[in-house]
């Protein structure tokens, strides 16, 4: 569905030198996947999307989108992808319906009227179709921009910061809609700073800082960076408890923390599903009261920051 091979983009700098925006990017996104592209400002995310949507040409390397080659099949790429740009960029003096009608015609949509109505209804804007967009809230403009990106039923959708600047309610609506699009089998490529959003929406995540630092599922990223850790909440940990658990051959690391509500035993494991029962048995045999057990879940923010700051 999407593949890049050593994709690179350099821009000329005012001092006569060049600025490396994207450095030899190798990436693959499969059909039907939601791919999250994370990275700090200036990391090259928008430049990558612009190259993949044939808006700007790569300096070197190759890329294919929907089996079309960037730089060679640019019009075909633009016909088969939808893009939600960082700023909605609507025509404020025109009505919502007129805005979409213009883009439907430019995207060569056959049933212009039908498609415009379908998406205006789908995103709850049908009743406001005759209102000029300049009077819309930011959330409404963003919804209208999503309609615009979908009018020609693209197989692949690029969303650049889809919930940036939206209030929680509007952001939830956008995220719910992305989930709905995923169920339709569309491939979605999201540039985002919202790590929580990426964690909940994306099948795979790539972290970018000019170079692609890592690509994997959110869960695998956590494991690759932090391993898996289980927390055993104990009423009171006996002094030898750490040594007791450390004695088990599969245990990688043990740490005991004392809190007001009791003690916590943090154990690093490879497969908690099969290894937890042995630890529980050992603790019970040692007369330790276990209050509850849970997996220590690192946030994607921790993962991201550790990657970016490396």
């Amino acid at each position, binding site marked *: 569905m999407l593949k890049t091979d050593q994709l690179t983009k350099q*821009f000329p700098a005012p001092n006569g030198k060049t600025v490396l925006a994207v450095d030899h990017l190798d990436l693959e996104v499969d059909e039907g996947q939601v791919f999250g592209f994370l990275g700090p400002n200036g990391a090259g995310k928008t430049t990558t999307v*612009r190259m993949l*949507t044939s*808006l*700007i*040409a790569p300096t070197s390397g190759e890329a294919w989108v929907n089996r079309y080659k960037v730089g060679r099949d640019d*019009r075909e790429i*633009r*016909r088969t*992808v939808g*893009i939600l*740009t*960082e*700023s*909605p*960029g*609507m*025509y*404020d*003096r*025109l009505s919502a319906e*007129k805005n979409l009608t*213009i*883009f439907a*015609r*430019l*995207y*060569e949509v056959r049933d212009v009227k039908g498609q415009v109505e379908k998406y205006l209804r789908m995103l709850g804007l049908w009743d406001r179709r005759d209102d000029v967009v300049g009077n819309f809230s930011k959330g409404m403009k963003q919804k209208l*921009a999503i309609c*615009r990106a979908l009018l020609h039923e693209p197989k692949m959708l690029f969303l650049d910061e889809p919930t940036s600047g939206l209030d929680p309610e509007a952001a939830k609506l956008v995220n719910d809609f992305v989930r709905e699009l995923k169920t339709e089998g569309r491939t979605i490529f999201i540039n985002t700073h919202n790590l929580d959003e990426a964690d909940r929406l994306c099948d795979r995540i790539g972290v970018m800082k000019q170079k692609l630092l890592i690509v994997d599922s959110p869960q695998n990223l956590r494991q690759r960076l932090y391993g898996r850790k289980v927390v055993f909440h104990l009423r009171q940990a006996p002094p030898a408890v750490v040594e007791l658990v450390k004695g088990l051959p599969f245990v990688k690391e043990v740490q005991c923390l004392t809190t007001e509500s009791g003690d916590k035993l943090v154990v690093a494991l490879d497969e908690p599903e099969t290894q937890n029962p042995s630890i529980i048995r050992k603790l019970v045999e040692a007369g330790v009261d276990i209050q509850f057990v849970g997996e220590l879940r690192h946030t994607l923010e921790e993962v991201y920051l550790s990657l970016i700051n490396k």
Partner: protein
Amino acid sequence: MDKILTIIDKEWAEVFKNRVVLFTVVLLPLVFTIMPLVILYTMETAGPGGAVSEMPPEFTRMCGDLRGTACTQVFIIYQFMLLFMLLPLAIPVAISAYSIVGEKTTHSLEPLLATPITTAELILGKGLAAAIPAIGATWVGFLVFILGTRVLVSTPQVSARLLDPVWLIGVVVLGPLLAAAAVSMSIIVSSRVSDPRTAEQLSMVLIVPVLGVFFGQIGGLVLIDAGFMLAMVAVMLLVDAGLVYLGVRLFQRETILTKWR
């Protein structure tokens, strides 16, 4: 073709909601058409006279058999016909400055460029959207001026001067060339500024040579005949070639997205 028509439709739907643009497109041709008619009518009703001797001698030679008021009326027509040449410059500048800088400030160019439209279709659509009203207004104004002169001026030779090849070349050939230059100039200027008024004012630099000819004619330094008009057409062809080349170079997807500020 459908995409070009879509761009024209979009441009007109948007820019004609802008009062400044509407004012330029409607009021300017109206003033340039009505004002000379009022002057010609006043001269007609004022009776015989007219200080022909105060006009440049080259011009009085052009009057031929015409004397007194009729010769002065021809002089007035020649002056205002030159002002007519300002319309194909001023109107496209107003439209394209607001259209291109407007798209820059609202960030609506990127979604537009992401559609399967070609750069040529986009430039052509925007260019035609700016040039058609200008050429249309000039031609309609010229037609009204011809009809008005026929009705208001008693000497038929005076109104016949409007159908002189000089002015037909001016309106039919030079007008569209001036409009093309104005559109290209707007694109070049709009790529560097982020305020439509600044873009409009900077693009208006094109008016200076036309005003130069206008004042040159008043001062007797320039005589507009068929040869002069053809020379102007030749010059504008060269200017257009240069401006269109620069405009097209600036109006590329990558340039717009990465260099336009």
